[in-house]
């Protein structure tokens, strides 16, 4: 049997938020691993802490206690600037509302993360064209977000997420704002990225159909990780 390596190790992570004078616990002593090349779906009701957990793994929020290792790096110990550099190199983001910059074309939106690299203009162009080709949007390079459909905007967002060839791809409700057909296209695309390119994907979703594409489903409720269901076993 093939031995899989953990790319993400979450160790005893807790997180709470302050709401006025009250402290609201969101995650309670979470521990689990995500293997390299795994497609994980994090599910759970609203307020269960799944987006918070995703933000912590992606290094855009700080834990109260515990550690998160990504590719062997303890990101909980990184300073803000180090964390920004780490995100630029290791994490690709896909959001529910696409989050493209409206004044930039599809090409320019995908090029954005590459501005933080030392690539030349020609190299950046090659990377962007490859990424947009991977999401079947080579014909929409000069279109602005407002000129694209929701599904197309999400595909641009995916191209932006993969253009730097990150260690992990995190997606927060990537189909939450899409119609069924577009949602299927996006999930097909993500499945392809996982199967063909071996990308590790961590996805938060409410949508059981979207979760079907994942290898592993984890369920969060009131900050506690309840169960693990492997699609293979299903």
């Amino acid at each position: 049997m093939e031995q899989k390596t953990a790319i993400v190790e979450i160790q005893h992570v807790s997180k709470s938020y302050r709401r006025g004078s009250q402290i609201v616990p969101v995650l309670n002593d979470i521990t689990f691993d995500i293997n390299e090349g795994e497609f994980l779906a994090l599910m759970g009701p609203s307020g269960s802490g799944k987006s918070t957990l995703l933000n912590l793994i992606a290094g855009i929020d700080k834990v109260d206690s515990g550690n998160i290792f990504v590719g062997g790096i303890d990101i909980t110990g990184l300073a803000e600037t180090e964390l920004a550099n780490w995100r630029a190199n290791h994490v690709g983001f896909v959001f529910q509302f696409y989050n493209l910059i409206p004044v930039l074309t599809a090409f320019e939106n995908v090029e954005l993360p590459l501005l933080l690299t030392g690539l030349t203009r020609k190299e950046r162009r090659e990377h962007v064209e490859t990424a947009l080709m991977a999401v079947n949007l080579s014909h929409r390079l000069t279109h602005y977000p407002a000129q694209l459909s929701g599904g197309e905007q999400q595909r641009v967002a995916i191209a932006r997420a993969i253009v730097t060839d990150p260690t992990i791809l995190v997606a927060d409700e990537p189909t939450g704002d899409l119609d069924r057909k577009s949602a299927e296209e996006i999930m097909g695309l993500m499945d392809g990225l996982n199967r063909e390119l071996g990308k590790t994907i961590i996805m938060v979703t409410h949508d059981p159909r979207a979760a079907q594409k994942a290898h592993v489903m984890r369920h969060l409720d009131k900050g506690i990780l309840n169960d693990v269901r492997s699609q293979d076993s299903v």
Partner: protein
Amino acid sequence: MYVLKILFKNALRHKLRTTLTVVGITIAVLAFGLLRTVITTWYMGVEASAANRLWTRNSVSLIFPLPIAYKEKIRQVEGVRSVSHATWFGGIYIDEKNFFAQFAVEPKTYMEAFSEYNTPPEQKAALLRDRKGAVAGRKLAQRYGWKLGDTIILKGTIYPGNWEFVLRGIYEGTRKDADETVFFFHWDYLNETLKKTAPGMEDQVGSFIVIAKSPDIVADVAQRIDNLFKNSLAETLTETEKAFILGFISMSDAIITAIELVSFVVIAIILAVVANTMAMTARERIGEYAILKTLGFGWFKIAGLIFGESMIITMMGCALGIGLTFPIADAFGEAMGQYFPAFNVTLETIYMDIAASIVVGLLAAIIPSWHAITTPVADGLRKIG
């Protein structure tokens, strides 16, 4: 190039808001530039003053005259090259609103002393031949449409009666800052008339203009002249031309201070306007800044986007304001010619416009940048959707 493109696109995202802010900055820069030019013009005489020219006046006050007999005594003081004199006439041309400086002078020495007033030789000769002859500056002659040979009548205020002059010369300034609005005529004509009409007022002059042999000795020469008339009935006060003019200006200190204050208030107001625009912009884009931070853009780059946008908006207004300052200053100078002999926008004023705009652009971006940088990414992302 890419960053500039983003900055311009961001700056023009809300076209109406940006246009209104740019118009506000344009007006502020224009107002600031014009007010600074008024102040510069006020001090223009100081800048234009000759280093070796001294003014000797009555030590009690400028309004008290000095005996003409002092002229020869001053001329013999060591270090003096030549002496002339000028007496404020204060006449009215047709109407009181037609104000311009009029001096009764000794034309030959006066024109030598003020080499920056260039009168053609044949006109100089015509003036010296005609006791009622007078010379006017180019701008003054233009303002009233005077031509050589015209008779000009001034109604005396200090020296009663109607005084008739014939325009024999029109001088031009040899420098850009030379005053071309002065009117001067023979002191002899004034003095001889006073002998007949106002005995007791004759043989007196307002001030002596002393040309020292070298600018290095003006302090000694001034001391020697004043010592010469110490304990006389009319003691003198001799000053460099610069000090003499500054003495005049100091009488309007309060006005100049007020104008300076207003010019800085204009900048403070526009700072508030730009800061408000940038605050609204940053608040609206807090989600976008969160996305950029998510992608790995650090605080320096986020702040750079906000500072850059603020600078672009401010400098657009600054460029338009400076561009408009020149034609409007020309029109203003034309309209206010009787009060401002020359109304020129100096390079220093333009530098001040640019400096003020840069300061406004930078200050206006501080708080919005701070807000964008310190808002946690997760909070910023929650603002989207």
